[in-house]
């Protein structure tokens, strides 16, 4: 079953073409990563899908219906979008944040139903929010905050979920925490489209990857097929090495350091001595 299909999508900021004749469609229940260099139109694509930007050319169909067919509220019941740096309202607790995910299903005279309670409880369990449920959202760590946001998105109970770089600015532990949560969401049968900067994380967690470059899809498919050395070298304009990860053989991509293959520069000794003196002087300061 096709949840989302994009046909001949075109978008430009003034004269700069960002997306050029883009077409693809997504089946249900998959975790699909969008990768590509900075400025390749990843976020723009997601914003167009979430109707945060006006469509300039082409068509976006959600469950076979054009995006413009939906009202804002009915679209919010089909598709949930988490922006790159969501604004956390001051003084809010995790519980409330997740409950706000039910807003598209509520009305002025229907502010809380059994279904609301059920979906919020499901989201709470799936994102493992028990320990932080009553915490102030502003006091959470990066990974916890993202899980809380994902809880809100999940409570929205949509078939399609769009996430714009939910792991950026997180360390590897928190990245794994968030991606495990995202993976659980997709495993429930929802389609998750996620923009990821880190190729290693993308390759390890996503069922399929879409590689964007020059406003077009450069490759699409399972990570192992998409992440070829030729493609990555060309897209990011640098030379990389690709190794198979232990376990699942997912491609691990590391940049190739030029100096390793060129004659070494002069000895690195001076920098070490400098560091030592700095350390010593710091010690002197404290003794004084």
């Amino acid at each position, binding site marked *: 079953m096709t949840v989302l299909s994009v046909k001949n999508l075109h978008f430009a900021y003034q004269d700069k073409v960002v997306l050029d004749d883009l077409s693809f469609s997504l089946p249900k229940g998959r975790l699909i990563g969008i990768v590509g260099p900075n400025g390749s139109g990843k976020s723009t694509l997601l914003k167009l899908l979430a109707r*945060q930007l006006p469509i300039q050319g082409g068509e976006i169909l959600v469950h076979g219906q054009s995006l413009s067919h939906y009202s804002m509220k009915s*679209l919010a019941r089909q598709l949930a979008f988490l922006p790159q740096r*969501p604004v*956390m*309202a001051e003084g809010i607790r995790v519980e409330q944040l997740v*409950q*706000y995910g039910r807003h598209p299903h509520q009305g002025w005279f229907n502010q809380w139903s059994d279904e609301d*309670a*059920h979906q919020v409880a499901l989201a709470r369990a799936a994102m493992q929010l028990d320990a932080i449920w009553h915490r102030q959202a502003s006091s959470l760590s990066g990974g916890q905050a993202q899980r809380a946001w994902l809880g809100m998105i999940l409570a929205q109970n949509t078939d399609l979920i769009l996430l714009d770089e939910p792991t950026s600015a997180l360390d590897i532990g928190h990245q794994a925490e968030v991606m495990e949560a995202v993976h659980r969401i997709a495993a429930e049968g929802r389609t998750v489209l996620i923009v990821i900067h880190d190729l290693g994380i993308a390759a390890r967690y996503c069922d399929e990857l879409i590689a964007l470059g020059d406003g077009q899809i450069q490759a699409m498919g399972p990570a192992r097929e998409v992440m070829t050395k030729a493609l990555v070298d060309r897209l990011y304009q640098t030379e990389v090495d690709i190794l198979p990860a232990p376990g699942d053989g997912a491609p691990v991509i590391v940049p190739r350091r030029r100096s390793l293959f060129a004659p070494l520069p002069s000895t690195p000794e001076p920098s070490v001595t400098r560091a030592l003196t700095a350390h010593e002087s710091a010690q002197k300061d404290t003794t004084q």
Partner: protein
Amino acid sequence: MASTTPSGVWSLRMGGLSLLLHRRNWLMCGLLTFLLIVLATLAISLGSGQMGVRDVIATLLGHGSKLQEIMVFKIRMPRIAAAIVAGFAMGMAGCLIQTLVRNRLATPDMIGVNEGASLAVVSFSLYLTLGSWPWWASPLGAVLAAVALFTLCRRPGEQGYLFIVIGIALSELLGAIGDFAMSTQPLVHLGSLYLWTMGHFAGVSYQTVNPIALVLLALCPLMALVNRPLALLRFGDATAQNLGIRVPLVQLAVLGLAILVASLGTAIGGPVVFIAMAAPILASWLARDNLAPLWLSALCGALLLLGSDTLVRVLAQPEEIPTGIMTRLLGGILLLALLLKDRRGAD
């Protein structure tokens, strides 16, 4: 999985109808209403020709002497009603704009709306002598000021800081024009007008208060309607839209309401500053996790303005000092405290 209601709320259900009432919020509203009644009773008893609180209550219940009735209903009550209605409007307008722009400094008196309103009232009363107080000119001036503000900076949600800075400049400009208009007039005509531009509630009549209170009452259902989407705007445009909010529509509606309400508040006793800033801050402390405590903010506004007005009346006796001077004094201290607290947070 058990059907749980969110913590901290009362859930009302009737058939297909369900309402959530934020528990702490409503308890605080009740408390503030009670305080407002106590303060109003106290305010009636204070002033020259003192009456005991017991006499006041007796008079209010219809058991007072002729003299006491004149004192309560003709002299003290209009002024107290004026302060309550104006404070209510200012607190509400402040909450609307602060939440919309997501900045505590964004209030109608900061961004030029109040100055526009008072300029219109001053102009009408100076150049068109109509006999009665031209309170209805106030929304006109406020809307014009808002239109000017919008042509200067387009999206209030996106660029909160710019919005405020341009608003302050506009506010100064409109204030200067008003002062200029007044300075061209002979001094004898200016006494009461001058006091009004500083925020003054002495001699306000029911003729001004009643129509304004009615318009405010009529706007209350609309307020209840925008309250929920307004709260979601606190999460930024993208998240609000994701949750099904038509962001530009809600922004426009909220801003329109805020301007209207702020100008009505100004029309009564003049541009009293800082109530619109202080009331929502106080309300959000009291409500804790209510994202847009509109009603609480309105009640805080009424309480603050009535408190300031009573204080000024008692302290300055028998002189008449504009209430705006007291709110400016208290507000200045509040603003300093806020900024210093922010600085400590940043250090």
